[in-house]
């Protein structure tokens, strides 16, 4: 007994003097030879989730997307969309706890392009690609009824308020900046920011820190009044979905057959995505429009170059999203006695025995990477902004009320507002209706 205690003390002293913090198990006390027939318990190791379940997730995704497209395009049934939405919220949200999701999978795809050593799981590729493919054919039916984040906001949209067009347009630029930012984060190995700023994952997991819970609650509460705030003003995947939906083969239509231009549908869209007919081009003198267009064309290179310049200049603050850069800055501050408190990270770094020069050169290389990345990001944003300005200037001739194909979530709220739809529905029930043409 006393011998063991002495040994323990001696071992403790040795460790203190050597000062190692290595995790390697050092057998200081030999394993006892039991005489009482004691059987060594086995370490309990619960297995990981079976792989076949992941393929089932993909199958459920495909089935849900097919059903959503059927409800939106063929059946024109908001009730079907709504029911599927609840199922998706329960399955992909509360059961699968929000992971894997196509929004986050965007980062894995970006990582494949930037990191040659990264091996992406096949299921993640499927989750990224399948909703985009469906959008290319049927519009954003994924947003309508399959995305658990969208479902959460759509269900809780109880008192929609109108957002002025200019504000909605301006906030609508954020997803582009966010997408660019997360790709920069992935390309520089700084982390997956979509997952960190996921709006509802803390509800799905029913477990979160206070800050995350407040963040989620803020989204949910604002979503009661503002239609789908995350989808419209943050979701980076929406950038890709917008593009697919804009050129989709089929897309949801407000009226089942013809538009009587009654403008009733305009009020039904809580996202303000229904565009009024526009025929008369003589409202603005052609000369003024052309001049504006010309000005925009001159502005494109200016905006791109300006964006690139600002982006590359922001490399130092931007690079602070990277842990290695932060660590190098901390170590440098400690070395020059600018700070006296060490951090857990800097202590661990000093214990690891890695040369400081190596860390500093890594950080400098990262900052150079952020300079290039910031330049590209700035150029991209300049281009997106100028394209959006051009889009706003061009006035397309429209002979009916139409949805904004890129933005429309295919939620099906507008169906019921259309008098033509009402007629059709009543016909189905077999009632005789006198229809004035």
């Amino acid at each position, binding site marked *: 007994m006393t011998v063991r205690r002495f040994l323990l003390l001696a071992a403790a002293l040795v460790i203190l003097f050597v000062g190692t913090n290595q*995790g390697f198990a050092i057998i200081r006390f030999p394993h006892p030879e*039991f005489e009482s027939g004691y059987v060594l318990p086995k370490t309990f*190791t619960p297995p990981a989730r079976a792989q076949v379940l992941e393929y089932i997730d993909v199958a459920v995704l495909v089935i849900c997307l097919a059903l959503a497209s059927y409800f939106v395009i063929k059946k024109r049934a908001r009730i079907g969309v709504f029911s599927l939405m609840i199922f998706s919220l329960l399955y992909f949200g509360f059961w699968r706890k929000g992971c894997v999701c196509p929004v986050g999978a965007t980062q894995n795809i970006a990582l494949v392009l930037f990191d040659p050593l990264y091996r992406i799981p096949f299921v993640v590729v499927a989750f990224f690609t399948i909703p985009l493919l469906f959008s290319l054919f049927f519009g954003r039916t994924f947003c309508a009824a399959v995305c658990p984040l969208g479902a959460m906001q759509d269900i809780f949209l109880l008192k929609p308020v109108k957002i002025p067009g200019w504000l909605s347009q301006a906030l609508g630029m954020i997803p582009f900046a966010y997408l660019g930012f997360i790709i920069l984060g992935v390309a520089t190995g700084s982390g997956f920011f979509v997952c960190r700023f996921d709006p509802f994952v803390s509800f799905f997991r029913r477990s*979160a820190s206070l800050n995350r819970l407040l963040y989620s609650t803020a989204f949910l509460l604002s979503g009661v009044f503002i239609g789908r705030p995350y989808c419209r003003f943050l979701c980076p995947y929406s950038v890709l979905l917008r593009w697919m939906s804009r050129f989709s083969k089929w897309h949801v239509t407000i009226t089942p057959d013809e538009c009587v231009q009654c403008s009733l549908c305009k009020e039904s869209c809580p996202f303000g995505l229904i565009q009024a007919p526009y025929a008369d081009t003589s409202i603005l003198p052609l000369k003024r429009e052309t001049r504006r267009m010309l000005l925009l064309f001159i502005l494109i290179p200016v905006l791109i170059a300006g964006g690139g310049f600002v982006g590359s200049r922001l490399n130092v603050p931007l690079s602070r999203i990277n842990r290695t850069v932060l660590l190098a800055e901390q170590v440098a501050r400690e070395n020059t006695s600018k700070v006296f408190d060490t951090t857990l990270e800097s202590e661990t770094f000093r214990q690891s025995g890695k040369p400081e020069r190596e860390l500093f050169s890594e950080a400098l290389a990262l900052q150079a990477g952020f300079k290039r990345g910031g330049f590209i990001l700035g150029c991209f944003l300049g281009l997106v902004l100028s394209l959006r300005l051009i889009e706003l200037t061009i006035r397309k001739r429209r002979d009916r009320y139409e949805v904004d194909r890129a933005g429309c979530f295919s939620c099906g709220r507008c169906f019921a507002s259309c008098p033509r739809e009402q007629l059709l529905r009543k016909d189905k029930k077999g009632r005789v209706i006198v229809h004035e043409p």
Partner: protein
Amino acid sequence: MSDEKRGAKLTRRELFRKTTRLVTAAVLGSCAGFAVFKSRTEATVWQIDPNICVQCGNCAKNCVLEPSAVKCVHAYAICGYCDLCSGYLRQNAQALDTAAHNRLCPTGAITRTFVEDPYFEYTIDETLCIACGKCVKACTAFGNGSLFLQVRHDRCLNCNECSIAQKCPSGAFRRVSAKTPYILKDEIVNRG
């Protein structure tokens, strides 16, 4: 028919849309194809390498789950079954007993069972363990290091990016094959 009625302007728009759709499909297809080419079918999960872990206590604070999906695990094969267990007792413990003020674990998750003189078995109640790593740190520093932290796959959600891994100062988190989802210390020691 309807295109003819609406005139040439719409047809041009329709043609533009069709071409762009084809190009987009091609780009998306090649992107997905490249990703599939670089993909693996084998699933992976997050795990802590106990050889790199510095027992900083971040596992308790940074998991998306509360309490953490990381738990302390005991490798019985390398445990010394000490009476004076540095993982079980505080450094300034008054007595070698199970009194709360003598125990190191803040939640009392370690159970001490008498085996035979002078040996005691230590088991971890995972429902109580919060992965603070206090016992692991002490056991690694003064004992055999048979206590170590592991991601428990009955709890872990296998996030795309593990939020503990983001805060791990030593970089001990890595993805391992889902078929061999644990890095057990007794196996490492037995292998040499």
